[in-house]
């Protein structure tokens, strides 16, 4: 009898073992979304609904079961949004402008902030590399894949894009000169400058959280090492000094530390160093090959590419030390909410919710896509 009870207790676990993702009811807030009024209401509702869904914070339910009711109207590129509780109390009421999609994204982020207290990811930009033209060029898009723009038409090799946290500037590595140089693009004006062009290979720029500095990899001194310089490319200071290859710097939220990949002791491993220099302190991950780290904006997590057979997206909790492999793919980058990452998987960029494991492709159909970067 005891055995039978034990079996019955285990049975559900066995039955549900195949289900990889379990979303507990308590994780989400139920909201009802009434189709927005106005000429652009239907289109804006679509964008908003997708944002609320992708945020991972909400389940969309009929009004009678909802904790909050969302409504409003949209026309002429602006949106009047409103969130109320079931008794009609106004929780949020605001007007947004900047075009239908941008307005809907801003409203979605405000709903997330109002209900959860967290930062939203809807009003953000991504940049990435695509082989659509037959050459590697840099593209930007909204985080949901809309508003695709080809930024470079170099006809050379344009790779390793990095958006400034506010999304206004882009740094990338280009080979037009025959060497690997770092270019800066002002996305509003389109102005472009080749700003880091030391002898050897200059690559892998990463903006500091305030956008005022960049860290990157330079080989001018006879070995690929990390350097920090002003966002105008001036005043390069060397950070690392090893016989190995240092690459892919990522900044701490306060800009005082940098995590990077180095193969100084065999396979590439992750290290942490002061942004002012010093010596790198190893970060244990349990993987023999770890590259392209991304530090979450809240400073608590680290996403990176790990090799164990194939390549996978691993996330390390920097407080508990636990590391989990969440998906197969490469090049993860954390979003503003420290919850979602976007990574590359062959011909798609995938939005991964690290809290519930859900994966949604956001960019597809552009050839091979790689090296995503995400504004915050």
């Amino acid at each position: 009898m005891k055995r039978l009870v034990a079996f019955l207790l285990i049975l559900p676990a066995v039955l549900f073992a195949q289900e990889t993702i379990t979303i507990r009811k308590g994780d989400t807030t139920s909201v009802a979304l009434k189709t927005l009024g106005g000429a652009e209401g239907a289109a804006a509702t679509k964008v908003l609904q997708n944002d609320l869904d992708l945020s991972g914070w909400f389940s969309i339910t009929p009004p009678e079961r909802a904790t909050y009711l969302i409504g409003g109207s949209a026309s002429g590129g602006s949106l009047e949004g409103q969130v109320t509780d079931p008794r009609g109390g106004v929780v949020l009421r605001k007007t947004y402008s900047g075009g239908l999609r941008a307005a809907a994204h801003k409203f979605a982020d405000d709903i997330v902030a109002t209900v959860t207290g967290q930062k939203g990811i809807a009003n953000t930009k991504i940049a990435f590399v695509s082989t659509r033209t037959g050459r590697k060029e840099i593209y930007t898009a909204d985080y949901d894949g809309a508003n695709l723009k080809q930024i470079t038409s170099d006809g050379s090799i344009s790779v390793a894009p990095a958006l400034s946290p506010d999304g206004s500037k882009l740094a990338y590595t280009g080979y037009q000169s025959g060497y690997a140089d770092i270019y800066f693009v002002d996305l509003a004006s389109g102005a472009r400058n080749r700003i880091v062009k030391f002898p050897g290979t200059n690559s892998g720029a990463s903006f500091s959280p305030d956008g005022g500095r960049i860290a990157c990899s330079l080989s001018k001194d006879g070995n690929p090492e990390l350097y920090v310089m002003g966002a105008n490319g001036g005043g390069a200071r060397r950070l690392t000094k090893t016989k190995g290859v240092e690459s892919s710097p990522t900044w701490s939220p306060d800009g005082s530390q940098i995590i990077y990949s180095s193969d100084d002791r065999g396979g590439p491993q992750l290290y942490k160093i002061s942004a002012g220099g010093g010596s790198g302190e190893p970060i244990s991950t349990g993987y023999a090959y770890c590259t392209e780290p991304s530090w979450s904006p809240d400073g608590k997590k680290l996403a990176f590419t790990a090799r164990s057979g194939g390549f996978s997206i691993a996330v390390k909790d920097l407080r508990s030390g636990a590391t989990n492999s969440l998906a197969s793919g490469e090049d993860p980058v954390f979003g503003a909410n420290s919850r979602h990452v976007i990574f590359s998987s062959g011909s798609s960029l995938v939005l991964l919710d690290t809290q519930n494991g859900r994966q949604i492709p956001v960019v597809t159909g552009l050839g091979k896509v790689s090296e995503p970067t995400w504004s915050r």
Partner: protein
Amino acid sequence: MKKLLTLGLAIFVIAAFDSCKKKEGDQFAGVDGDYVSGTPLPDRIDGANFFGGNVVRGQFSPVYFGYDSITVSDSELMKLEQVASAVKSSRKTLIIAGFTDDRGTEEYNRGLGEKRAQAVRDALISMGLSGGNIQTVSFGEEMPADPGSGDAAYAMNRRAEFGVVK
């Protein structure tokens, strides 16, 4: 007068060199500010593009590497003797381009390709070539010699190639 000019020029050159050196030293965050490894690269030659018309490629056999390795093996070192003697007599500038196979992440592979190019450069310097005539560039996993996949293609792609600036 001529002598005075020469002397003046010499002093100027030394002073310029000295200040240049100092500037370089100031860039380092480290305490001692020396080079732990490698010999600094010379300035670029404007317009010298490894895959462009002003660089002769294919004159020397590429040097091949093992997976995720930067070691120039003994058999590959023999190829370098030929490069060293040819470049020594021609006194031309050499560009070494490093490449990887397409496994692994792109930015790490750019670093790995550069390290391969620099490992070959270091070996040539130890054979008596001046580092001042040898530049490097990494293409990482771009521009594969064999666009296929599989071990045979990967082995062809993990390489350092030589280009001689015309």
